[in-house]
């Protein structure tokens, strides 16, 4: 395997924003144990701005580092800006990821989208219309086309 960048290792060693959140305004839960990665992202929202983000992750070094990075990126962003955060921006912020680990950045993006979706559903009754998370879903180790 390619090795991890220093940035990835730094976030893996000292992950930011770990842990539970008292009364989160939105929760994003993605992944499952079959694939070996599960991410849970919690956000606090005030006046359309994400004021705090925390996470818990079961997974490899890259899963933990991408979770940590996405919480850092998203704090202070408006909901609209947060929805524009892509997996690539997480990868770039980490100075790259080994190819076989790119799916972790996709999970981080999805966890964020789902947390925003959850918040919107709770507050406006209308979410982003994301597909249901399928319990028996395929692991995303197959890379999306644009990442190949």
């Amino acid at each position, binding site marked *: *395997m390619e090795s991890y960048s220093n940035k990835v290792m730094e976030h893996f060693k000292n992950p930011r924003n770990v842990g539970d959140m008292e009364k989160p305004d939105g929760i994003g839960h993605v992944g*499952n144990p079959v694939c070996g990665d*599960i991410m849970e992202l919690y956000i606090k929202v005030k006046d359309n701005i994400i004021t705090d983000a925390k996470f818990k992750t079961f997974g490899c070094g890259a*899963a*933990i580092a991408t979770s940590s990075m996405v919480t850092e990126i998203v704090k202070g962003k408006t909901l609209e800006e947060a929805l524009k955060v892509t997996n690539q921006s997480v990868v770039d912020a980490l100075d790259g990821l080994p190819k076989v*680990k790119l799916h972790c950045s996709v999970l981080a993006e999805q966890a964020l989208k789902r947390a925003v979706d959850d918040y919107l559903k709770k507050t406006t009754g209308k979410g982003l219309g994301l597909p249901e998370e399928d319990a028996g879903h395929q692991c995303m180790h197959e890379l999306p086309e644009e990442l190949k």
Partner: protein
Amino acid sequence: MKRIYLDYAATTPVHTEVFRAMEPYFTKYFGNASTIYYYGRESKKAIEEAREAFARLLGADQSEVIFTSGGTESDNHAIKGVAYANKNKGNHIITSKLEHHAVLETCHFLEKEGFKVTYLPVGADGLLNLEDLKSAITDKTILISIMAANNEIGVLQPVAEIGEIAREKKILFHTDAVQMFGSLPVDVEKMNIDLLSVSAHKIYGPKGIGGLFIRKGTKIVSYMHGGEQEKRRRAGTENVAGIVGFGKACEIAARDMEKEIKRISRLRDLFISDLLKKIPEVKLNGSLVKRLPNNVNVSVKYIEGESMILNLDMEGICASSGSACTSGSLEPSHVLRALGLSHELSHGSVRFTLGKYTTKEDMDAVLLKFSEIVDRLRKLSPLYKSEKKGECNCDGTCGG
């Protein structure tokens, strides 16, 4: 930083006595062993001495062992060689789901060539059921290939019993003994073994050299075609220094085996019992009793293997995991899955393999560091929280 190496099943450092024995064969005695003058004779003599040491450690005759490039080549040679040479008798091969990829991938290849392969299941303890083996045998079966000791979980298969069944049915029996050779006694006569693979780098010898035992009279196709080396079974100018190192490693293994089995298995047993006491919700993978003296393989609930390995590495401790994330493949270890472990527990496995230079102090230090790491990662894990509250809602595969 003091480093503690606990991955002796992956490879071992070359023993200094081995290194010293090899050195003259790079520069001083550089001759091609096929030549008849002084340099050639020196090389030839060294090869034959190594052959004797290797054969002795197996209870075989010198004429029955050849040198190869390692465990992978020996497995390929044994299985393909027997399959092609005995095609007229049948096309069926029996192996197990626990085998090393060197055996499994060879069998997959032969399936494409028209052979039929049965992959026997194993019990939750990793042991093969002999009744399953007996009932898998057909009149087309030409080869049984079952590993002596598993590289991930260290489980020892009942090799002698398998050999007896094979002998009775007149089927050839190959065993991948890469992990067992040099650390436990092997006797090809008593165990009714027809073909046996070994690798030098697992027994404090150099990498890229190994051996294959082929019982006298066994029908087998040569692997490498070319010169006359190894009685035409394996052509190519011999890796003399490698062979010398391998021979020396065999000598040392024979000399130290009894003492090392006692010492290492004591360290292992203590570590396993301390670990299971100190860290809650940890499970030992594979049989506790039918096990290599140096193998510890555990699954730690709620956390993933690669993140444990990286954390251990940060503390100077080298170990490995059956998690998909550490192999670069998509699936967690086929061995752990064959034991019936859930995906979560397969992803959460760690293997510590002890060796010659492992001390009690090392193991105590590892236990301490490891339990801190587990605590830290569990605090990061969403599974830990939800299962603690008894509301695992992630589709029923959790922990199961």
